[in-house]
């Protein structure tokens, strides 16, 4: 969708018919696909293709002398995977990873599963031992197609070299079409060294996949479907749009905003969809769910019609599906993936298709029939909820509050910076206290919840968006997971800003242990750990590396940090007891939401504890 064969439009590929090695074919197809960055780590079984990248770049320099397809080398292949994911999330283009066989490939399993769970398009090219050695327990051999088959959108093991070219091209098509996802290509070393004819065009038949994709793409909204939806909307006094990650992945933000604005329908987004609506808009309810805004969750409690767009009623949103949005009379669901329709909660109306097109069609129908909607009462209620139940925290505390740190960064970033995070409390504080005025500014591991995601994702995003400020908000636990990538940021001179909110432990785990395990901090306390993050950053070449531990310095130090032109590292010693509120307990309904000491609740806090297996 985003890239085309450059030569394909005018006719035959200029290199069609040329004799090439498999490795050269791989690199040529990458170039044809418009790949401008490869994230990867070399090794024995991928050497031929690394050599081909080197030769390609040597022969095809940009006018300024820089390579056309730079190879970005992380500290660990997991870093490469998350860099490609960050690149893809920030740009909407397919991220590319190139690693060797065995450990190189298995180190990318986590990012591949992460991309699958969050529908992020990447292509992972793995070297494999030569065909004759497969299955012999050879050096650096791993059953990549079996391992990845369970976690990726698709995996190819290229056993027939003449299918290599079409396979690489098809991998990109699979990654970016339909519901996007990760595709793995496992290429034996002898296939990389094979020599054959480059066709310059052609893809695998993918008969079933293409037929199903075609069915979805051809599935336009009918007038009758539109009429039914508008009839429900006409009968609704409190409609609410529940937007999910599909809106971002499907580039449907504009269409969604146009539809919502046309009728004044408030929008609550999931964690994955932050930026789908401009969070500073009066009818934006920011995020709903387990740690969503209290006002968003109350609006879900109050609404009588839910329009789910690219959202999947995940357990972090609908912990108790039966009691989720208890007053709704109608649920309408737009998605690109039919398996999400009715998976968790039955819906009244659904349409599987291309989100941006379908929302445009829906609005066009509404305009054609002159549909009008008066929602002043609902708007007044929404404004009241936003005022009464706004976010807040302990502003009088002598300790630095994490939310204050994010508020201050947000004041400077103005909802226009790219924010990456690890996983845990800091992730939720960032989701809550940052504004997001546009899509693709928020990079977080939503479904898999992979600690260590933030730093490599920020690095990848900075490669995709040189024009943007990129900030990694991390926790001390998440930072430790991929600490090695600090050096990657300085090696490539990337002006990423890294914030570690240090509460000396795994804060979210501690929060749950305090709530559900009588405060037994099993394995989550790190107050005796000796890590000096600032010195670690300095050792990795950060010229700006500071520790903020006095509340009175907050504004000044954050100002300096944000103004610094190069890679910058800031450790903030935060109140170790700060919790994430609001919180809807796992498996619970929104009426049991705990709002903490600083956010006004409209219900009494709950006193029931879920059973230990319901909590995950």
């Amino acid at each position, binding site marked *: 969708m985003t890239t085309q064969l450059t030569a394909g439009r005018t006719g035959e590929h200029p290199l069609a018919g040329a004799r090439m090695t498999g490795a050269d074919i791989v690199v040529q197809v990458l170039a044809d696909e418009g790949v401008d960055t490869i994230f990867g780590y070399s090794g024995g079984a991928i050497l031929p293709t690394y050599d081909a990248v080197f030769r390609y770049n040597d022969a095809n320099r940009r006018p300024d002398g820089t390579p056309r397809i730079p190879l970005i080398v992380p500290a660990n292949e997991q870093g490469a995977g998350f860099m490609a994911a960050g690149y893809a999330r920030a740009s909407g283009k397919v991220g590319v990873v190139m690693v060797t066989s065995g450990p190189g490939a298995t180190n990318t399993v986590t990012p591949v599963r992460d991309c699958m769970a969050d529908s992020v398009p990447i292509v992972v090219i793995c070297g494999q031992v030569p065909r004759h050695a497969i299955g012999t327990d050879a050096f650096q051999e791993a059953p990549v*197609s079996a391992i990845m*088959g369970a976690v990726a959108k698709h995996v190819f*093991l290229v056993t027939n070299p003449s299918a290599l070219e079409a396979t690489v091209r098809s991998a990109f098509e699979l990654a970016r079409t339909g519901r996007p996802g990760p595709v793995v290509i496992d290429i034996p070393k002898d296939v990389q060294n094979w020599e054959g004819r480059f066709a310059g065009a052609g893809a695998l038949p*993918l008969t*079933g996949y293409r037929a*199903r994709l075609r069915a*979805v793409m051809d599935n336009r909204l009918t007038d009758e*479907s539109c009429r039914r939806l508008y009839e429900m909307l006409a009968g609704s006094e409190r409609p609410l749009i529940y937007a999910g990650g599909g809106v971002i992945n499907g580039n449907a933000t504009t269409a969604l905003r146009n539809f919502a604005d046309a009728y004044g329908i408030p929008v609550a987004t999931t964690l994955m969809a932050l930026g789908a609506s401009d969070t500073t808009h009066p009818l934006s309810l920011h995020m709903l769910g387990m740690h969503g805004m209290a006002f968003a969750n109350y609006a879900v409690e109050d609404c009588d019609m839910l329009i789910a767009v690219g959202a999947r009623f995940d357990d972090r949103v609908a912990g108790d599906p039966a009691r989720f949005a208890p007053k709704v009379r109608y649920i309408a669901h737009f998605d690109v993936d*039919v398996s999400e329709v009715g*998976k968790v909660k039955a819906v009244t109306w659904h349409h599987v298709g291309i989100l941006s097109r379908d929302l445009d069609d829906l609005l066009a129908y509404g305009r054609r029939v002159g549909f009008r909607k008066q929602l002043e009462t609902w708007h007044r209620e929404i404004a009241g909820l936003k005022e009464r139940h706004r976010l807040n925290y302990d502003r009088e505390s002598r300790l630095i509050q994490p939310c204050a740190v994010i508020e201050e960064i947000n004041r400077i970033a103005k909802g226009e910076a790219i924010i990456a995070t690890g996983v845990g409390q800091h992730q939720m504080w960032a989701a809550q206290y940052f504004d997001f005025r546009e899509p693709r500014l928020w990079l977080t591991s939503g479904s898999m919840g992979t600690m260590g995601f933030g730093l490599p994702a920020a690095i990848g995003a900075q490669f995709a968006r040189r024009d943007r400020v990129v900030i990694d908000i991390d926790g001390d636990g998440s930072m430790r997971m991929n600490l090695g990538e600090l050096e990657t940021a300085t090696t490539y001179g990337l002006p990423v800003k890294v914030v570690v909110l240090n509460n000396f432990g795994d804060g979210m785990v501690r929060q749950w242990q305090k709530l559900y395990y009588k405060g037994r901090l099993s394995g989550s306390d790190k107050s005796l750990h000796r890590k000096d993050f600032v010195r670690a950053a300095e050792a990795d070449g950060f010229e700006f590396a500071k520790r903020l531990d006095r509340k009175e310095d907050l504004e000044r130090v954050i100002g300096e940090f944000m103004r610094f032109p190069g890679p910058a590292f800031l450790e903030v010693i935060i109140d170790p007891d700060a919790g994430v509120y609001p919180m809807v307990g796992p498996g619970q309904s929104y009426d049991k939401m705990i709002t903490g000491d600083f956010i006004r609740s409209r219900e009494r806090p709950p006193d029931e504890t879920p059973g230990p297996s319901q909590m995950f």
Partner: protein
Amino acid sequence: MRHVIAVLLQNEVGALTRMTGLFSTRGYNIDSLNVAPTDDPAVSRVTLVIEGSDAAIAQLNTQLAKLVDVVNIHDMTLGEHFERELAIVKLKLAPGGYEQVLRLAADFGAEILDDAENSCTIQLTGGLAKVDAFVRDAARIGTLAAVARSGSVAVSKGEVTLSSYARVHRLSG
């Protein structure tokens, strides 16, 4: 309830693993599984038998339809269909047992493939209940030395062969 699902699967490396893996990933056991070539050398036909509620199996089928290797899927149980299984049973016989084998074979319409002195091999084709009954009765007249069953294969009755994706997985509603 019991579902018989026919899947046309592309003959790609690992395709069968990816397909069967999906069942364990989603918490289901496969009761029987049959895989064989079709007239198209690029495509195999897989027949699965699986227990689950209609809603759960419908969800599983939409997940199956997301696998790139899957060409088409049809849940035979949604309509009328023919379901057959082949069984080959080897029996160790006590002296005089052969007479009983002849009767058993006649009763079930089974074919005796091999009759040695004190063992014999019998082949039967039929529906699931018939094959179950045959194996049970065979065990009464001798010792079962081998029970080889193909697992169910099925085709739908009437003209429809495999389903249209858009129709079965309702894309709008």
